[in-house]
Protein backbone atom coordinates (compact mmCIF):
# COMPACT_ATOMS: atom_id res chain seq x y z
CA UNK A 1 0.00 0.00 0.00
CA UNK A 2 2.68 2.46 1.11
CA UNK A 3 6.24 1.97 -0.02
CA UNK A 4 9.14 4.16 0.99
CA UNK A 5 12.52 3.76 -0.61
CA UNK A 6 15.74 5.57 0.13
CA UNK A 7 13.95 8.46 1.84
CA UNK A 8 16.24 11.26 2.97
CA UNK A 9 15.14 14.31 4.92
CA UNK A 10 17.28 17.10 6.30
CA UNK A 11 16.56 20.19 8.37
CA UNK A 12 19.08 22.68 7.09
CA UNK A 13 22.36 20.85 7.65
CA UNK A 14 20.97 18.27 10.07
CA UNK A 15 20.20 14.97 8.39
CA UNK A 16 17.25 13.56 10.29
CA UNK A 17 16.43 10.64 7.98
CA UNK A 18 19.31 9.10 6.08
CA UNK A 19 17.85 6.91 3.37
CA UNK A 20 15.32 4.49 4.77
CA UNK A 21 13.24 1.77 3.13
CA UNK A 22 9.93 0.81 4.62
CA UNK A 23 6.76 -0.89 3.51
CA UNK A 24 3.22 -0.86 4.88
CA UNK A 25 1.04 -3.63 3.41
CA UNK A 26 -2.71 -3.10 3.21
CA UNK A 27 -4.71 -4.13 6.25
CA UNK A 28 -1.72 -4.49 8.57
CA UNK A 29 -0.36 -2.68 11.58
CA UNK A 30 3.22 -1.62 11.02
CA UNK A 31 5.23 0.04 13.72
CA UNK A 32 8.37 2.12 13.66
CA UNK A 33 10.14 2.22 17.00
CA UNK A 34 13.19 4.14 18.07
CA UNK A 35 14.63 6.44 20.69
CA UNK A 36 14.05 10.15 20.94
CA UNK A 37 15.42 12.03 17.96
CA UNK A 38 15.81 8.94 15.79
CA UNK A 39 13.78 10.54 12.99
CA UNK A 40 10.44 8.82 13.48
CA UNK A 41 8.27 11.93 13.41
CA UNK A 42 10.26 13.30 10.52
CA UNK A 43 9.45 10.19 8.50
CA UNK A 44 5.72 10.62 9.07
CA UNK A 45 5.85 14.32 8.30
CA UNK A 46 7.67 13.55 5.06
CA UNK A 47 4.92 11.14 4.01
CA UNK A 48 2.22 13.83 4.25
CA UNK A 49 4.68 16.44 2.98
CA UNK A 50 4.68 18.59 6.09
CA UNK A 51 8.46 18.62 5.58
CA UNK A 52 10.24 18.50 2.25
CA UNK A 53 12.19 15.35 1.45
CA UNK A 54 15.67 15.63 0.00
CA UNK A 55 15.70 12.41 -1.98
CA UNK A 56 13.97 9.06 -2.35
CA UNK A 57 10.47 8.05 -3.18
CA UNK A 58 7.22 7.43 -1.35
CA UNK A 59 4.57 5.60 -3.34
CA UNK A 60 1.01 4.96 -2.32
CA UNK A 61 -0.69 2.21 -4.31
CA UNK A 62 1.98 2.81 -6.93
CA UNK A 63 1.45 6.57 -7.04
CA UNK A 64 4.27 8.94 -6.12
CA UNK A 65 3.41 11.14 -3.11
CA UNK A 66 6.62 13.14 -2.97
CA UNK A 67 5.99 16.77 -3.81
CA UNK A 68 2.21 16.46 -3.46
CA UNK A 69 0.48 19.05 -1.24
CA UNK A 70 -0.59 17.86 2.21
CA UNK A 71 -4.18 18.54 1.21
CA UNK A 72 -3.86 16.16 -1.72
CA UNK A 73 -2.23 13.46 0.39
CA UNK A 74 -5.05 13.66 2.94
CA UNK A 75 -7.49 13.51 0.07
CA UNK A 76 -5.93 10.24 -1.08
CA UNK A 77 -6.76 8.67 2.28
CA UNK A 78 -3.66 9.13 4.43
CA UNK A 79 -4.16 10.93 7.73
CA UNK A 80 -1.67 11.78 10.43
CA UNK A 81 -2.41 11.97 14.14
CA UNK A 82 0.39 14.35 15.04
CA UNK A 83 2.74 13.90 17.98
CA UNK A 84 1.48 15.66 21.08
CA UNK A 85 -2.14 15.34 19.93
CA UNK A 86 -2.58 18.92 18.70
CA UNK A 87 -6.32 19.18 19.27
CA UNK A 88 -7.86 22.61 18.66
CA UNK A 89 -8.09 23.81 22.26
CA UNK A 90 -10.77 26.51 22.08
CA UNK A 91 -13.08 24.56 19.80
CA UNK A 92 -15.59 22.05 21.07
CA UNK A 93 -15.09 18.32 20.75
CA UNK A 94 -17.71 18.23 18.02
CA UNK A 95 -16.09 21.07 16.07
CA UNK A 96 -12.74 19.27 16.32
CA UNK A 97 -14.31 16.17 14.81
CA UNK A 98 -15.92 18.17 12.02
CA UNK A 99 -12.63 19.76 11.04
CA UNK A 100 -11.27 16.24 10.69
CA UNK A 101 -13.77 15.83 7.87
CA UNK A 102 -12.74 19.06 6.19
CA UNK A 103 -11.94 17.33 2.91
CA UNK A 104 -15.32 15.61 2.73
CA UNK A 105 -18.50 17.18 1.51
CA UNK A 106 -20.99 14.43 2.42
CA UNK A 107 -23.02 13.85 5.57
CA UNK A 108 -21.03 13.29 8.75
CA UNK A 109 -23.67 12.09 11.20
CA UNK A 110 -22.96 8.37 10.81
CA UNK A 111 -19.22 8.87 11.29
CA UNK A 112 -19.71 11.01 14.37
CA UNK A 113 -22.02 8.37 15.80
CA UNK A 114 -19.45 5.68 15.10
CA UNK A 115 -16.67 7.63 16.79
CA UNK A 116 -18.87 8.34 19.79
CA UNK A 117 -19.59 4.63 20.07
CA UNK A 118 -15.86 3.92 20.12
CA UNK A 119 -15.20 6.74 22.58
CA UNK A 120 -18.27 7.28 24.76
CA UNK A 121 -16.35 9.82 26.82
CA UNK A 122 -16.15 12.10 23.82
CA UNK A 123 -19.89 12.03 23.39
CA UNK A 124 -20.38 13.11 27.00
CA UNK A 125 -18.04 16.00 26.32
CA UNK A 126 -19.33 16.90 22.91
CA UNK A 127 -19.80 20.61 23.77
CA UNK A 128 -16.73 20.97 25.93
CA UNK A 129 -13.69 22.91 24.71
CA UNK A 130 -11.07 20.38 23.65
CA UNK A 131 -8.37 22.17 25.64
CA UNK A 132 -10.15 21.27 28.87
CA UNK A 133 -10.05 17.51 28.21
CA UNK A 134 -7.59 15.25 30.01
CA UNK A 135 -4.55 13.99 28.11
CA UNK A 136 -6.14 10.63 27.40
CA UNK A 137 -9.36 12.21 26.19
CA UNK A 138 -7.40 14.56 23.95
CA UNK A 139 -5.64 11.57 22.42
CA UNK A 140 -8.99 9.90 21.83
CA UNK A 141 -10.18 13.08 20.19
CA UNK A 142 -7.07 13.28 18.02
CA UNK A 143 -7.68 9.72 16.85
CA UNK A 144 -11.40 10.35 16.36
CA UNK A 145 -10.69 13.53 14.44
CA UNK A 146 -8.30 11.69 12.13
CA UNK A 147 -10.92 8.98 11.56
CA UNK A 148 -13.38 11.61 10.36
CA UNK A 149 -11.51 11.88 7.08
CA UNK A 150 -12.16 8.14 6.57
CA UNK A 151 -8.50 7.35 6.06
CA UNK A 152 -7.37 4.16 4.45
CA UNK A 153 -3.99 4.59 6.11
CA UNK A 154 -3.92 6.06 9.60
CA UNK A 155 -0.54 7.19 10.90
CA UNK A 156 -0.10 7.79 14.61
CA UNK A 157 2.85 9.55 16.14
CA UNK A 158 3.45 8.33 19.69
CA UNK A 159 -0.17 8.07 20.82
CA UNK A 160 0.92 6.79 24.26
CA UNK A 161 3.15 9.78 25.02
CA UNK A 162 2.52 11.09 28.52
CA UNK A 163 -0.49 8.91 29.24
CA UNK A 164 -1.16 6.66 32.22
CA UNK A 165 -0.70 2.92 31.52
CA UNK A 166 -4.39 2.14 31.75
CA UNK A 167 -5.22 4.88 29.25
CA UNK A 168 -2.46 3.63 26.96
CA UNK A 169 -4.02 0.19 27.04
CA UNK A 170 -7.33 1.76 25.96
CA UNK A 171 -5.67 3.54 23.04
CA UNK A 172 -3.98 0.34 21.87
CA UNK A 173 -7.30 -1.52 22.11
CA UNK A 174 -8.78 1.08 19.80
CA UNK A 175 -5.88 0.71 17.40
CA UNK A 176 -6.57 -3.02 17.16
CA UNK A 177 -10.30 -2.43 16.75
CA UNK A 178 -9.73 0.02 13.90
CA UNK A 179 -7.38 -2.43 12.24
CA UNK A 180 -9.98 -5.19 12.49
CA UNK A 181 -12.44 -2.84 10.80
CA UNK A 182 -10.03 -2.77 7.88
CA UNK A 183 -7.89 0.28 8.49
CA UNK A 184 -4.17 0.08 7.74
CA UNK A 185 -2.06 1.57 10.49
CA UNK A 186 1.45 2.97 10.69
CA UNK A 187 2.28 3.42 14.33
CA UNK A 188 5.24 5.23 15.81
CA UNK A 189 6.19 4.51 19.37
CA UNK A 190 8.86 4.78 21.99
CA UNK A 191 6.73 2.44 24.06
CA UNK A 192 8.17 -0.50 22.13
CA UNK A 193 6.65 -3.15 24.32
CA UNK A 194 3.06 -2.26 23.53
CA UNK A 195 3.74 -1.39 19.92
CA UNK A 196 5.48 -4.66 19.14
CA UNK A 197 2.64 -6.63 20.69
CA UNK A 198 0.01 -5.23 18.33
CA UNK A 199 2.18 -4.88 15.24
CA UNK A 200 2.23 -7.29 12.34
CA UNK A 201 5.55 -5.92 11.22
CA UNK A 202 8.08 -3.62 12.86
CA UNK A 203 11.07 -1.49 12.01
CA UNK A 204 13.70 -0.10 14.34
CA UNK A 205 15.02 3.35 13.55
CA UNK A 206 18.31 4.61 15.00
CA UNK A 207 19.66 8.07 14.18
CA UNK A 208 17.99 8.19 10.81
CA UNK A 209 18.71 4.63 9.69
CA UNK A 210 16.72 1.45 9.90
CA UNK A 211 18.79 -1.05 11.85
CA UNK A 212 16.36 -3.93 12.26
CA UNK A 213 13.12 -5.17 10.82
CA UNK A 214 10.91 -8.16 11.45
CA UNK A 215 7.53 -9.26 12.68
CA UNK A 216 6.42 -7.81 16.00
CA UNK A 217 6.90 -11.17 17.66
CA UNK A 218 10.43 -11.59 16.32
CA UNK A 219 11.58 -8.21 17.56
CA UNK A 220 9.89 -8.71 20.88
CA UNK A 221 12.08 -11.79 21.36
CA UNK A 222 15.25 -10.14 20.03
CA UNK A 223 17.90 -9.79 22.74
CA UNK A 224 19.40 -6.51 21.57
CA UNK A 225 15.96 -4.95 21.24
CA UNK A 226 15.05 -6.16 24.70
CA UNK A 227 18.14 -4.51 26.06
CA UNK A 228 17.86 -1.26 24.15
CA UNK A 229 14.11 -0.58 24.16
CA UNK A 230 12.06 -2.94 26.24
CA UNK A 231 14.03 -2.71 29.45
CA UNK A 232 13.61 1.00 29.74
CA UNK A 233 10.38 1.41 27.88
CA UNK A 234 8.58 2.04 31.15
CA UNK A 235 11.01 4.78 32.06
CA UNK A 236 10.04 7.02 29.19
CA UNK A 237 8.05 9.96 30.41
Amino acid at each position, binding site marked *: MLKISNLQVAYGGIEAVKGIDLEVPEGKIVTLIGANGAGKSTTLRAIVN*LVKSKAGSITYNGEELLGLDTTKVVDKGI*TLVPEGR*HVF*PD*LTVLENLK*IGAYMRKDNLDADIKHIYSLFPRLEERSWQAAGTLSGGEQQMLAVGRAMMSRPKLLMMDEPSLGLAPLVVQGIFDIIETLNKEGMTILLIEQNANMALRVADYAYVLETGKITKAGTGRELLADESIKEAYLGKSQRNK
Partner: protein
Amino acid sequence: MNETQNSLGAYLKLHWKTAVFLVVLLIGIGLADIFVDSYMRRLLNLCAIYVIVSLAMNLVNGFTGQFSLGQAGFMAIGAYTVAIFTVPVESRTAIFYLEPMAPFLANIQLPFVVALILGGLASVVVAFFIGSPCLRLRGDYLAIATLGFSEIIRIVFTNTQSITNGALGIKSIPTISSLWWTYGTALLIIIATILLVYSSYGRAFKSIREDEIAAEAMGVGLFKTKMTSFLIGAFFTGIGGGLFAALLGTVDPKQFYFTLTYNFLLIIVLGGMGSISGTIIASFLVTLGQEALRFLDEPMAFGLDLPIFRPGLRMVVFSFLLMIIVLFYRKGLMGTNELTWDFMAQKFQSIKKKLSRKKTSTEGGGK
Protein backbone atom coordinates in the same frame (compact mmCIF):
# COMPACT_ATOMS: atom_id res chain seq x y z
CA MET B 1 -27.70 20.62 16.04
CA ASN B 2 -28.37 21.31 12.39
CA GLU B 3 -31.71 19.80 11.58
CA THR B 4 -32.69 20.48 8.03
CA GLN B 5 -35.42 23.08 7.99
CA ASN B 6 -37.58 22.32 5.00
CA SER B 7 -40.32 24.78 5.74
CA LEU B 8 -40.36 28.38 6.80
CA GLY B 9 -42.83 27.52 9.57
CA ALA B 10 -40.50 25.00 11.19
CA TYR B 11 -37.64 27.43 10.89
CA LEU B 12 -39.58 30.21 12.56
CA LYS B 13 -40.68 27.90 15.34
CA LEU B 14 -37.05 27.15 16.09
CA HIS B 15 -35.81 30.70 15.76
CA TRP B 16 -38.81 32.79 16.67
CA LYS B 17 -36.90 34.85 19.21
CA THR B 18 -34.32 35.77 16.59
CA ALA B 19 -37.05 36.57 14.08
CA VAL B 20 -38.85 38.81 16.59
CA PHE B 21 -35.57 40.45 17.48
CA LEU B 22 -34.84 41.18 13.83
CA VAL B 23 -38.26 42.71 13.28
CA VAL B 24 -37.91 44.88 16.39
CA LEU B 25 -34.44 45.89 15.24
CA LEU B 26 -35.67 46.90 11.79
CA ILE B 27 -38.54 48.90 13.27
CA GLY B 28 -36.06 50.51 15.66
CA ILE B 29 -33.79 51.56 12.82
CA GLY B 30 -36.80 52.85 10.91
CA LEU B 31 -37.99 54.92 13.86
CA ALA B 32 -34.51 56.22 14.59
CA ASP B 33 -34.16 57.16 10.95
CA ILE B 34 -37.25 59.36 11.23
CA PHE B 35 -36.74 60.90 14.63
CA VAL B 36 -33.07 61.40 15.52
CA ASP B 37 -31.33 64.73 14.97
CA SER B 38 -28.42 65.12 12.61
CA TYR B 39 -25.77 64.85 15.33
CA MET B 40 -27.14 61.56 16.64
CA ARG B 41 -27.71 60.35 13.10
CA ARG B 42 -24.08 60.85 12.25
CA LEU B 43 -23.01 59.09 15.41
CA LEU B 44 -25.27 56.11 14.76
CA ASN B 45 -24.04 55.91 11.18
CA LEU B 46 -20.49 55.91 12.47
CA CYS B 47 -21.34 53.05 14.84
CA ALA B 48 -22.58 50.93 11.95
CA ILE B 49 -19.43 51.63 9.92
CA TYR B 50 -17.29 50.68 12.92
CA VAL B 51 -19.29 47.47 13.21
CA ILE B 52 -18.50 46.64 9.58
CA VAL B 53 -14.78 47.32 9.75
CA SER B 54 -14.32 45.75 13.19
CA LEU B 55 -16.15 42.64 12.11
CA ALA B 56 -13.90 42.37 9.07
CA MET B 57 -10.86 42.81 11.28
CA ASN B 58 -12.12 40.20 13.71
CA LEU B 59 -12.66 37.75 10.88
CA VAL B 60 -8.97 37.94 9.99
CA ASN B 61 -7.41 38.58 13.40
CA GLY B 62 -9.86 36.92 15.76
CA PHE B 63 -11.24 34.00 13.79
CA THR B 64 -8.30 33.16 11.54
CA GLY B 65 -5.54 34.29 13.89
CA GLN B 66 -3.69 36.34 11.27
CA PHE B 67 -2.54 39.65 12.62
CA SER B 68 -3.49 42.29 10.08
CA LEU B 69 -3.16 46.00 10.81
CA GLY B 70 -4.14 47.34 7.40
CA GLN B 71 -7.64 48.58 8.24
CA ALA B 72 -6.89 52.27 7.73
CA GLY B 73 -5.27 51.51 4.38
CA PHE B 74 -8.11 49.37 3.05
CA MET B 75 -10.63 51.93 4.27
CA ALA B 76 -8.68 54.63 2.44
CA ILE B 77 -8.90 52.64 -0.78
CA GLY B 78 -12.65 52.19 -0.40
CA ALA B 79 -13.16 55.80 0.64
CA TYR B 80 -11.16 57.26 -2.21
CA THR B 81 -12.83 55.01 -4.75
CA VAL B 82 -16.23 56.30 -3.67
CA ALA B 83 -14.95 59.87 -3.56
CA ILE B 84 -13.37 59.79 -7.01
CA PHE B 85 -16.28 58.11 -8.74
CA THR B 86 -19.25 59.81 -7.10
CA VAL B 87 -18.27 63.47 -6.95
CA PRO B 88 -20.43 65.24 -9.56
CA VAL B 89 -18.51 65.91 -12.77
CA GLU B 90 -19.51 69.59 -12.76
CA SER B 91 -17.91 70.34 -9.41
CA ARG B 92 -14.64 68.58 -10.17
CA THR B 93 -12.81 71.58 -11.63
CA ALA B 94 -13.60 73.51 -8.48
CA ILE B 95 -12.32 70.74 -6.23
CA PHE B 96 -9.20 69.92 -8.22
CA TYR B 97 -8.15 73.57 -8.51
CA LEU B 98 -4.41 73.05 -8.00
CA GLU B 99 -4.04 70.33 -10.57
CA PRO B 100 -6.96 69.20 -12.75
CA MET B 101 -8.24 65.66 -12.47
CA ALA B 102 -6.61 63.15 -14.80
CA PRO B 103 -8.57 63.13 -18.07
CA PHE B 104 -9.26 59.39 -18.00
CA LEU B 105 -11.16 59.85 -14.74
CA ALA B 106 -12.53 63.35 -15.06
CA ASN B 107 -15.74 62.37 -16.82
CA ILE B 108 -16.56 59.09 -15.15
CA GLN B 109 -19.28 59.26 -12.56
CA LEU B 110 -20.79 56.10 -11.10
CA PRO B 111 -23.83 55.40 -8.94
CA PHE B 112 -22.96 55.19 -5.24
CA VAL B 113 -23.57 51.44 -4.92
CA VAL B 114 -21.35 50.66 -7.89
CA ALA B 115 -18.56 52.86 -6.55
CA LEU B 116 -18.95 51.27 -3.12
CA ILE B 117 -18.54 47.75 -4.47
CA LEU B 118 -15.70 48.87 -6.72
CA GLY B 119 -13.95 50.22 -3.62
CA GLY B 120 -14.33 46.84 -1.93
CA LEU B 121 -12.95 45.08 -4.98
CA ALA B 122 -10.00 47.47 -5.21
CA SER B 123 -9.16 46.61 -1.61
CA VAL B 124 -9.33 42.93 -2.48
CA VAL B 125 -6.85 43.36 -5.32
CA VAL B 126 -4.38 45.21 -3.11
CA ALA B 127 -4.89 42.66 -0.31
CA PHE B 128 -4.04 39.88 -2.74
CA PHE B 129 -0.67 41.43 -3.51
CA ILE B 130 0.11 41.94 0.18
CA GLY B 131 -1.11 38.49 1.16
CA SER B 132 0.64 36.55 -1.58
CA PRO B 133 4.09 36.80 -0.05
CA CYS B 134 3.09 37.34 3.61
CA LEU B 135 0.52 34.63 4.16
CA ARG B 136 2.97 31.94 3.06
CA LEU B 137 5.14 32.71 6.05
CA ARG B 138 4.40 32.03 9.68
CA GLY B 139 4.73 34.74 12.25
CA ASP B 140 4.28 38.46 12.29
CA TYR B 141 5.16 39.35 8.72
CA LEU B 142 1.56 40.15 7.89
CA ALA B 143 1.30 42.68 10.72
CA ILE B 144 4.44 44.47 9.59
CA ALA B 145 3.49 44.41 5.92
CA THR B 146 -0.07 45.63 6.44
CA LEU B 147 1.12 48.36 8.76
CA GLY B 148 3.64 49.47 6.15
CA PHE B 149 1.02 49.30 3.43
CA SER B 150 -1.30 51.55 5.45
CA GLU B 151 1.35 54.23 5.67
CA ILE B 152 2.44 53.84 2.05
CA ILE B 153 -1.07 54.13 0.65
CA ARG B 154 -1.55 57.35 2.58
CA ILE B 155 1.63 58.79 1.17
CA VAL B 156 0.71 57.61 -2.33
CA PHE B 157 -2.70 59.30 -2.04
CA THR B 158 -1.04 62.49 -0.84
CA ASN B 159 1.15 62.55 -3.94
CA THR B 160 -1.16 61.43 -6.74
CA GLN B 161 -2.54 64.93 -7.03
CA SER B 162 -4.37 64.47 -10.32
CA ILE B 163 -6.30 61.47 -9.03
CA THR B 164 -6.81 62.07 -5.32
CA ASN B 165 -6.28 65.82 -5.15
CA GLY B 166 -3.35 65.19 -2.78
CA ALA B 167 -3.32 66.75 0.65
CA LEU B 168 -6.32 68.94 -0.20
CA GLY B 169 -8.57 65.91 -0.22
CA ILE B 170 -11.82 65.56 -2.08
CA LYS B 171 -14.82 67.52 -0.91
CA SER B 172 -18.48 67.63 -1.95
CA ILE B 173 -18.93 63.88 -2.05
CA PRO B 174 -22.68 63.27 -2.24
CA THR B 175 -23.52 62.24 1.31
CA ILE B 176 -25.73 59.53 2.65
CA SER B 177 -27.63 60.48 5.74
CA SER B 178 -30.25 57.77 5.96
CA LEU B 179 -29.42 55.10 8.50
CA TRP B 180 -30.53 52.45 6.05
CA TRP B 181 -27.36 52.59 3.98
CA THR B 182 -25.02 51.94 6.86
CA TYR B 183 -27.28 49.68 8.90
CA GLY B 184 -28.49 47.79 5.86
CA THR B 185 -24.91 47.10 4.81
CA ALA B 186 -23.86 46.28 8.35
CA LEU B 187 -26.74 43.82 8.68
CA LEU B 188 -25.85 42.12 5.41
CA ILE B 189 -22.23 41.85 6.46
CA ILE B 190 -23.14 40.54 9.91
CA ILE B 191 -25.32 37.84 8.37
CA ALA B 192 -22.64 36.96 5.82
CA THR B 193 -20.06 36.71 8.59
CA ILE B 194 -22.27 34.48 10.72
CA LEU B 195 -22.94 32.16 7.80
CA LEU B 196 -19.25 32.09 6.94
CA VAL B 197 -18.01 31.48 10.46
CA TYR B 198 -20.36 28.55 11.00
CA SER B 199 -19.62 26.93 7.64
CA SER B 200 -16.83 24.45 7.08
CA TYR B 201 -14.74 27.36 5.81
CA GLY B 202 -15.25 29.10 9.13
CA ARG B 203 -14.14 25.99 10.96
CA ALA B 204 -11.03 25.93 8.80
CA PHE B 205 -10.34 29.58 9.77
CA LYS B 206 -10.61 28.72 13.45
CA SER B 207 -8.50 25.59 13.08
CA ILE B 208 -5.67 27.70 11.66
CA ARG B 209 -5.96 30.11 14.56
CA GLU B 210 -5.83 27.25 17.04
CA ASP B 211 -3.08 25.07 15.61
CA GLU B 212 -1.57 25.43 12.16
CA ILE B 213 0.21 22.09 12.24
CA ALA B 214 -2.91 20.14 13.09
CA ALA B 215 -5.00 22.15 10.63
CA GLU B 216 -2.59 21.33 7.86
CA ALA B 217 -2.53 17.67 8.83
CA MET B 218 -6.33 17.65 8.49
CA GLY B 219 -5.98 18.82 4.91
CA VAL B 220 -6.74 22.50 5.47
CA GLY B 221 -4.73 24.40 2.87
CA LEU B 222 -3.07 27.04 5.03
CA PHE B 223 -2.25 29.60 2.37
CA LYS B 224 -5.53 29.33 0.49
CA THR B 225 -7.63 29.51 3.62
CA LYS B 226 -5.75 32.43 5.16
CA MET B 227 -5.97 34.24 1.84
CA THR B 228 -9.72 33.69 1.63
CA SER B 229 -10.21 35.20 5.05
CA PHE B 230 -7.85 38.10 4.34
CA LEU B 231 -9.56 38.96 1.05
CA ILE B 232 -13.05 38.82 2.51
CA GLY B 233 -11.85 41.06 5.34
CA ALA B 234 -10.34 43.51 2.86
CA PHE B 235 -13.58 43.60 0.85
CA PHE B 236 -15.70 44.42 3.90
CA THR B 237 -13.17 47.00 5.08
CA GLY B 238 -13.16 48.69 1.68
CA ILE B 239 -16.95 48.85 1.79
CA GLY B 240 -16.73 50.32 5.30
CA GLY B 241 -14.31 52.94 4.00
CA GLY B 242 -16.64 53.82 1.12
CA LEU B 243 -19.53 54.36 3.51
CA PHE B 244 -17.22 56.44 5.71
CA ALA B 245 -16.42 58.75 2.79
CA ALA B 246 -20.08 59.10 1.91
CA LEU B 247 -20.98 59.80 5.53
CA LEU B 248 -18.42 62.55 6.00
CA GLY B 249 -18.76 63.97 2.50
CA THR B 250 -15.05 64.56 2.34
CA VAL B 251 -11.86 62.49 2.30
CA ASP B 252 -8.29 63.50 2.84
CA PRO B 253 -5.18 61.47 3.66
CA LYS B 254 -5.04 62.62 7.28
CA GLN B 255 -8.23 60.71 8.09
CA PHE B 256 -6.43 57.45 7.49
CA TYR B 257 -3.59 57.58 9.98
CA PHE B 258 -2.71 54.44 11.85
CA THR B 259 -4.71 55.72 14.82
CA LEU B 260 -7.82 54.80 12.88
CA THR B 261 -6.73 51.15 12.87
CA TYR B 262 -6.05 51.46 16.58
CA ASN B 263 -9.77 52.12 17.14
CA PHE B 264 -10.75 48.85 15.51
CA LEU B 265 -8.06 46.95 17.32
CA LEU B 266 -9.47 48.31 20.57
CA ILE B 267 -12.93 47.22 19.58
CA ILE B 268 -12.07 43.64 18.76
CA VAL B 269 -9.91 43.22 21.85
CA LEU B 270 -12.61 44.71 24.01
CA GLY B 271 -15.42 42.75 22.40
CA GLY B 272 -13.52 39.49 22.26
CA MET B 273 -11.29 38.13 19.53
CA GLY B 274 -13.49 35.64 17.76
CA SER B 275 -16.90 36.91 18.86
CA ILE B 276 -19.29 38.48 16.39
CA SER B 277 -21.73 39.81 18.97
CA GLY B 278 -18.85 41.03 21.13
CA THR B 279 -17.55 43.04 18.20
CA ILE B 280 -20.93 44.61 17.60
CA ILE B 281 -21.38 45.55 21.25
CA ALA B 282 -17.86 46.93 21.52
CA SER B 283 -18.26 48.97 18.33
CA PHE B 284 -21.13 50.84 19.90
CA LEU B 285 -19.44 51.13 23.30
CA VAL B 286 -16.25 52.56 21.84
CA THR B 287 -17.87 54.89 19.32
CA LEU B 288 -20.46 56.27 21.73
CA GLY B 289 -18.03 56.18 24.67
CA GLN B 290 -15.46 58.30 22.90
CA GLU B 291 -18.20 60.77 22.09
CA ALA B 292 -19.58 60.82 25.63
CA LEU B 293 -16.15 61.62 26.99
CA ARG B 294 -15.68 64.49 24.59
CA PHE B 295 -16.30 67.06 27.35
CA LEU B 296 -12.91 66.06 28.78
CA ASP B 297 -11.23 67.69 25.80
CA GLU B 298 -12.82 71.04 26.51
CA PRO B 299 -11.03 73.45 28.81
CA MET B 300 -14.27 74.94 30.13
CA ALA B 301 -15.82 71.77 31.53
CA PHE B 302 -18.36 72.30 34.30
CA GLY B 303 -18.15 76.05 33.72
CA LEU B 304 -14.76 76.12 35.44
CA ASP B 305 -11.41 76.76 33.86
CA LEU B 306 -9.70 73.51 34.86
CA PRO B 307 -6.23 73.19 33.35
CA ILE B 308 -6.29 69.39 33.17
CA PHE B 309 -9.25 69.43 30.80
CA ARG B 310 -7.55 69.88 27.48
CA PRO B 311 -7.47 68.11 24.11
CA GLY B 312 -6.10 64.61 24.53
CA LEU B 313 -7.41 63.97 28.02
CA ARG B 314 -10.36 62.13 26.53
CA MET B 315 -8.11 59.48 25.03
CA VAL B 316 -6.15 59.16 28.27
CA VAL B 317 -9.29 58.53 30.28
CA PHE B 318 -10.70 56.30 27.61
CA SER B 319 -7.58 54.16 27.43
CA PHE B 320 -7.56 53.94 31.20
CA LEU B 321 -11.15 52.70 31.27
CA LEU B 322 -10.27 50.15 28.64
CA MET B 323 -7.32 48.90 30.63
CA ILE B 324 -9.60 48.34 33.59
CA ILE B 325 -12.10 46.45 31.49
CA VAL B 326 -9.42 44.27 29.94
CA LEU B 327 -7.98 43.59 33.39
CA PHE B 328 -11.28 42.16 34.55
CA TYR B 329 -12.25 40.52 31.30
CA ARG B 330 -9.01 39.03 30.09
CA LYS B 331 -10.54 37.76 26.85
CA GLY B 332 -12.69 40.80 26.19
CA LEU B 333 -16.35 41.12 27.07
CA MET B 334 -17.43 38.02 25.18
CA GLY B 335 -14.27 35.95 24.67
CA THR B 336 -15.12 33.62 21.82
CA ASN B 337 -18.72 33.31 23.00
CA GLU B 338 -21.74 34.65 21.20
CA LEU B 339 -24.67 36.47 22.70
CA THR B 340 -27.17 33.76 21.81
CA TRP B 341 -30.46 33.22 23.60
CA ASP B 342 -28.99 30.18 25.36
CA PHE B 343 -25.96 32.17 26.46
CA MET B 344 -28.17 34.92 27.90
CA ALA B 345 -30.40 32.42 29.69
CA GLN B 346 -27.31 30.82 31.19
CA LYS B 347 -25.92 34.16 32.37
CA PHE B 348 -29.29 35.12 33.75
CA GLN B 349 -29.46 31.87 35.71
CA SER B 350 -25.99 32.27 37.15
CA ILE B 351 -26.67 35.86 38.19
CA LYS B 352 -29.93 34.79 39.82
CA LYS B 353 -28.12 32.04 41.67
CA LYS B 354 -25.43 34.43 42.83
CA LEU B 355 -28.02 36.92 44.08
CA SER B 356 -30.03 34.33 45.94
CA ARG B 357 -26.86 32.94 47.52
CA LYS B 358 -25.92 36.39 48.69
CA LYS B 359 -29.37 36.83 50.13
CA THR B 360 -29.29 33.56 52.08
CA SER B 361 -25.78 34.24 53.31
CA THR B 362 -26.70 37.68 54.61
CA GLU B 363 -29.87 36.31 56.16
CA GLY B 364 -28.05 33.39 57.74
CA GLY B 365 -24.90 35.05 58.89
CA GLY B 366 -26.17 38.59 59.51
CA LYS B 367 -24.51 40.03 62.61
